[in-house]
């Protein structure tokens, strides 16, 4: 990209009732990301342009938006990865109600999470109240704990985006969260009924859109959702397990993942 070239950004302006794309011209230079351009536009010509951001380093997940129609973090999208000969469109996540401009109301995500049963550890392994864990067991869950709660996976999920199943479906973020709890080497809580009934994992038909947009490269579908689906199947639909359960209840604490 040449130094100091003018570029056009087509930014969504509006609130929950009405809105439209507004074009802004601004100067772009080497290394800039979309968030830099938005900040420049704020400073130059639209001081009330609403957007969220915190860290500008892909760590906080605040600046989620749809850039040229694709769910991305504005702070991690370099302009030299986009076609700058055309206007760059920047619009809010479309799965959530609009607040203003690029800001959406993501409070639903916080409500879903609060209803998920919290972490419940087994008794400590050592007398001093500590546990012994192997790195390999920790790493499996650490992948899920990388989640920065940007909600881009929720934004792209068609069950939420197109079918609006917010009341019956938790969305990929919360399956990642539940997988992290379920596969946590210390956790002994039972959540599969919740995964099935309250969070409606059955609605997910494994299109892997969530995995594709995850800025943390979490293998959401293969590593979190599919294993959860398998566990739900084993627990509730497998005839042999069902028969077995009649004879002996099996507390989760005994199950080794």
């Amino acid at each position, binding site marked *: 990209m040449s130094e100091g070239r003018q570029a056009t950004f087509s930014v969504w302006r509006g*609130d929950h009732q009405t809105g439209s794309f507004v074009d802004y011209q601004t100067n772009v*230079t*080497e*290394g*800039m*990301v979309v968030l*830099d351009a938005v900040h420049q536009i*704020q*400073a130059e010509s639209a*001081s*009330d*342009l*609403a*957007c*969220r*951001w*915190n*860290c*500008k*380093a*892909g*760590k*906080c*997940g*605040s600046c989620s938006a749809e850039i040229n129609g694709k769910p991305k973090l504005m702070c*991690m999208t*370099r302009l030299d990865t986009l076609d700058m000969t055309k206007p760059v469109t920047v619009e809010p996540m479309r799965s959530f109600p609009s*607040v*203003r*401009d690029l*800001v959406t*109301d*993501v*409070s639903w995500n*916080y409500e879903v*999470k*609060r209803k998920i049963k*919290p*972490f419940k*550890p087994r008794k400590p392994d050592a007398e001093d*109240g*500590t*546990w*012994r*864990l*192997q*790195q390999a067991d*920790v790493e499996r*869950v*650490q992948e899920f*704990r*990388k989640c*920065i*709660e940007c909600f881009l996976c929720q934004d792209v999920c068609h069950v939420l985006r197109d079918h609006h199943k917010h009341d019956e479906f938790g969305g990929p973020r919360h399956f990642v969260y539940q997988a992290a*709890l379920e596969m*946590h080497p*210390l*956790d002994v809580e039972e959540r599969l009924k919740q995964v099935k009934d309250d969070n409606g994992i059955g609605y997910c038909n494994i299109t892997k859109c969530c995995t594709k947009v995850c800025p943390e490269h979490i293998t959401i579908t293969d590593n979190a959702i599919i294993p959860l689906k398998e566990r739900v199947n084993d627990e509730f639909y497998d005839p042999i397990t069902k028969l077995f359960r009649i004879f002996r209840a099996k507390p989760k604490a005994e199950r080794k993942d």
Partner: protein
Amino acid sequence: MGTPERITHEHEVLIIGAGGAGLRAAIEAASTGASVGVVCKSLLGKAHTVMAEGGMAASMGNVDDRDNWRVHFSDTMRGGQYLNNWRMAEIHAQQAADRVRELESWGALFDRTRDGKILQRNFGGHKFPRLAHVGDRTGLEMIRTLQDHGIHQGIDFYMECTVLEILMDGDRVAGAVGYDREKGRFHVWKSPAIVLATGGIGRAYKITSNSWEYTGDGHALAYRAGAELKDMEFVQFHPTGMVWPPSVRGILVTEGVRGEGGVLRNSEGRRFMFDDIPDLYKNQTASDPEEGWRYVTGDKDAQRPPELLTRDHVARCIVREIREGRGSPHGGVFLDIAWIKEKMPKAEAHIQKKLPSMYHQFKQLAGVDITKDAMEVGPTTHYAMGGVNVDGETQMSTVKGLFACGEVAAGLHGANRLGGNSLSDLVVFGKLAGEHAVNWAKANPTPTVDQGQVQDACRAALEPLERSTGESPYEVQSTLQDMMQDKVGIVRKEGEMAEAVEGIAALSAKAANASVPGNIEYNPGWHTALDLQNLMVVSEAVARCGMDRKESRGAHFREDYPEKDEGHAGHNTIVSRGSDGQMRVERRAIPPMTSELSDIIKEMG
């Protein structure tokens, strides 16, 4: 414009700030059954804590059993050049390990040693490997653990709300008034006890690792409420921020890179950190690169490499190389972790595993593969050692019912903070602040809120929206940032700081005349105009304290007084608002240490 709606809430304890310290304080206060409210400037879970990378310091002795709280205490005091509140340093060193274990019991998953214990890594200024960590995203692990644990404790969270003023009932706090970003409505939180946990001041500078929220809100709220601020001259410049490309300038490169064996080189390829080792650390530093490598790979007989000296020293050495013309092409120096492939097989995979977020960050933002090439780095404004002057045991400020913890509180770190001591600071003192705030609230309930104070705060807040002409808040902020960077930055001089004080006065007048278009709903221009008031207070405090300390110590480096001065060794700098409304600076002697603690320091050498 009509008067916006005003909503009233009531809590026994109000926490302002929802990073590690605020959340830990809230959990503690709520554990007594008290009603607790937490005001978050951003969404829950997005606070600056999320960006902390390296780890949390706690002398668990899991990797080196020679480590214990006494060594940690002594390292912290030495790092802080003995200006620390020694009682806080003692409490911190004694309680940090319990706070780490507590996080694990709430679901945090730290990296492990071979025998299954929590792994600990090397960091600057720490004698032994001491940082419990999760790769290089320890802050995320901590804030998510506290957030997920906290949401089940019956705490009320007020997301995307900013506090404008602390409300007073005589000489005690009565609550706070603020606004929510979404609708621009005003809120009044009535509360007998308030915990400030608002973080730092980095947005007063142009090049900073800090998030937009770090505008010194808690410092300024406390100051205006009549509390004292302490040691504001000590602003830590982290040695390694990204320098290229320009849009990422300042973003942090974790000290963990050096902890894993990364070395600093100048444009001549010279590893310059061996050139200048301070007397205080001469017998704790490796004598050659080979010994340094043995240290980072766990040899207990080796001393640490000079890259792991304290941040103030490393930052100044980097500035020296750049000033003397041996910098990198974009005005930094080189930080090289890729070289370890000479020493170990599968080094590339090792780097990616130990520093995943750094690998990702450089690849995506700078197009650099850190497993193959060196990074370009330079100092970036990172942390305020100074802050609200608090009692070391209760965390109460000099105003009754007003508590502070985490970065906004002063004391633990003295003149320079050791890496990793921040995350442990948050949970150690967050817990204590929550505990003592709730005790205070139960003993001193029901203050009276003065509606006049509420109205004044709301009226003042609306002024920028009502002015049709005036300064752009973005422009005022950017001028202030440039000025602080140039005149009150990493190398300071009397005349420049005096110019800054004058400049701040002129900019304060402009800030008071700021005008913003638009309405009260999610209007970032308006929010910036309101944040400016706080930035002015903290900038003036840094500049005035900097002028008063006519020596170089810790993070405060004076070109006109380049040496440490014994005359300044025994006092803290105290800032308060005089009855005339002007900022007052005084020196206050540090009380003598207990003999037990001074014996520890003598013993540790």
